[in-house]
């Protein structure tokens, strides 16, 4: 991701390059990307909200949701935001080993969440809710599946960041790279809070 910005950051003092906003290019781009992602999830959530009660066949949402189980996996995901904050703070202090430790823990927590989701999906399918069963089935799997893919991509990013820091192959400012991954990670968490509330907690 580090493009001319890297260069600008590296040589800022040397050449007097400053960005007009004060934000680095990478960070501004990440914020714009997340802004765009809001609309992506907005569309998916709207689709789910439109269809959530429409069950022509198969189980009704409230009949199959296991709220305690999903609450625990949601808690695990939220805790990963905390460890992500600790990773960013370690990176800003320049403490590589701590950064890697917290990034790895964050990735493990994220993977646990994804694992929980896989378990939940298989349980639902066993109970008769297939992808094609009903409008509720299609929109539920699409929305939570999209979120699951986002978490998985995040886990991949976290582990890659650990690898790159270890091999010392990072092409940007280390703290900034960790922070950018963190921005993405927190966004994915926030989206889950909304999905959890709308999909699981509010009865349809």
């Amino acid at each position, binding site marked *: 991701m580090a493009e001319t910005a890297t*260069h600008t950051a590296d040589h800022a003092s040397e050449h007097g390059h400053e*960005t007009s906003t004060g934000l680095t*290019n990478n960070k*501004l*781009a990440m914020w714009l990307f997340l802004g765009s992602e809001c609309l992506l999830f907005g569309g998916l959530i709207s689709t789910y909200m439109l269809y959530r009660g*429409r069950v*022509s066949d198969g189980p009704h949402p409230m009949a199959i949701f296991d709220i305690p189980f999903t609450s625990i996996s949601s808690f695990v995901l939220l805790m990963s935001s905390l460890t992500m904050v600790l990773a960013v703070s370690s990176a800003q202090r320049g403490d590589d080993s701590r950064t890697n430790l917290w990034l790895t823990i964050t990735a493990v927590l994220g993977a646990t969440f994804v694992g929980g989701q896989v378990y939940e999906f298989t349980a639902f399918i066993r109970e008769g809710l297939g992808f094609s069963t009903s409008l509720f089935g299609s929109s539920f799997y699409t929305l939570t599946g999209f979120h699951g893919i986002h978490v998985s991509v995040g886990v991949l990013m976290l582990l890659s960041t650990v690898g790159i820091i270890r091999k010392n192959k990072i092409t940007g400012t280390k703290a900034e790279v960790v922070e950018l991954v963190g921005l993405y990670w927190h966004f994915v968490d926030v989206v889950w809070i909304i999905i959890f509330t709308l999909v699981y907690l509010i009865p349809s």
Partner: protein
Amino acid sequence: MAIIERPGTGTTPVVVTPQQTLGAVKRPVATKGWREWLFTVDHKKIGIMYGVVAMVFFIIGGVEALLIRLQLAMPDGQILSADKYNQMFTMHATTMVFLFAMPMAGAFANYFLPLQIGARDVAFPRINALSLWLLIIGGLVLNASWFLGGAADGGWFMYAPNSGPIFSPSHGVDFWVIGLQIAGVASLLGSINLIVTVLNMRAPGMSLMKMPVFTWMILVVQFLLVFSLPVITVALVLLMLQRSYGATFFDVSQGADPLLWQHLFWIFGHPEVYVLILPAFGIISEVLPTFARKPLFGYPFVVFSGASIGLVGFGVWAHHMFASGLGPVSVAVFSVATMAIAIPTGVKIFNWLLTMWGGKIWYTTAMNFAIGLVVLFTIGGLSGVTHSVAPSDTQQTDTYYIVAHFHYVLFGGMVFGLFSGFYYWWPKVFGKMLNEKLGAWNFWFMVIGMNMTFGPMHILGLQGQPRRMYVWTEARAGEGFFNLGFWNLIASIGSFILAVGILFFLINVVITARSKQQAPLDPWDARTLEWLTTSPPKAHNFDRIPVVHHLDEFFHRKYEEDTATHTMKKVAEGEDLVRAEADAADAHIHLPSPSYWPILLSIGVGLLGLGVVYGIPMMVIGFAITLFSAYGWVLEPSVAEEIDFEPSDNDGNTKEIAPLG
């Protein structure tokens, strides 16, 4: 291509190519031939490639349009079958919107945006290359469907459930859905890139309100894209899951709501309309002041009306759905909002008129096209306001009146704006002037052809000829002035006159390319920063980054106010200013280095997408290539490190390898 060193004595810039490996493979080093273009990250080369690709698709889409007009020229047309006709108008619209209009605006944006803000490149040069290649892959996937079992046939808005597997059983819609998703990613990356470029990389002194209007309009467009593309992506994903993986989103028998697609599509689709037209508005806001030899009248009004068009453009989508029974409140709200959008548009029209008012107008081809836009767009805008009145729209919906309307705004508006841009900026990009005499033929054939083609469609539509009908019959054509046969024939003849006009342009391009005559550095006595460098610009754009003090900085470097008469007096020639820049050149300029990853990554994404049609193995291969290139990308520094270059000689100077072309 990478670091340009200037030894103390000479001022000839030299290219130093990176030689060593960083990341997984050796960097591309070619500075000549096709490799230079394939792996380039230079925004100017990418801009030119965008232009070429868009032009090719313009011709393809144009041929499709001519086939449609041939089919409709006579009653009971025999040129196309009903099925082929459906594919033809679907692909005509899709090609023109996504593969011609957006990329062509992208070509101008890519090329001129960094130049207008005094930057050396865009913020993310490799992502810029990725956008281009993804667009090309998306366009190929879309058009490959012609040879792989038939193209999409549901109209460019692809209403569900009509686009579902039952009513559209060929793979055409699948290719369409995949191709547009890929092109959408390309557009999204491009828009983020350009926003960051404008917000972060302006030359010192260039505040937002000193930016050229073209840059402003492109900025507004990119914001529209960032927030509207994800919505159509959702729609496309839903349709893809329905068609290929058994989801039920648009399955009415399961209780699905067919309006879901329409809402998602038009939440994107209406901002898209402004995505198409605002770049043209930007172009003529540069052209009109230059050739009227007056500053743009009411610059802040032009800027803010552009921004408010963008903003309000997000709140009017349902006017495309008046006939679908939204209920009186929704219809009233969207009706009023749609009328309101005519206000900022009108503001712009009046600003352009007042820019020309009292100016010493120089009727070049670029200026003719710009004036053509003002006139023709206004006609299209007025018929647009008639759609905002819901009862009237209910009559006009799905008739040729709508076709007339959007071709006046898109062809008379957008395409004329782009052609104005071609003639205005050609000497900047290629160092040669397009022939003005052929330009006049080009312009007048296009004006006459366009009005003959789309003007009669108002009458056809109000007489009730529906859109998307593949034949009409003599028995029901009506009589006298309103005879459908007469006006359909006129429209078809007009479309060929239009095509001849565009042929004149292509001939002009060839003749210009062969001519040896170089264009002067400042042929139009222009006003903005892109003219403060050579034509074509050097790889690093500016020998030194300009410091900006005025709106229309280049103009103010040439002219000063005569305090006695309050007129502007020329104090310097543009050519001299450009030469002076070369003498004061920066010594040490870093440019991003070429890269294999953008093109490789986009091939991976293309295969990944085709896997939806051709099965899991292809998807896995595509995913593997995508992942591999993503890692290669991350591990490759965008600007080659010093160590990545030829070893320095005894004096410590980096070795010169090839002179800059």
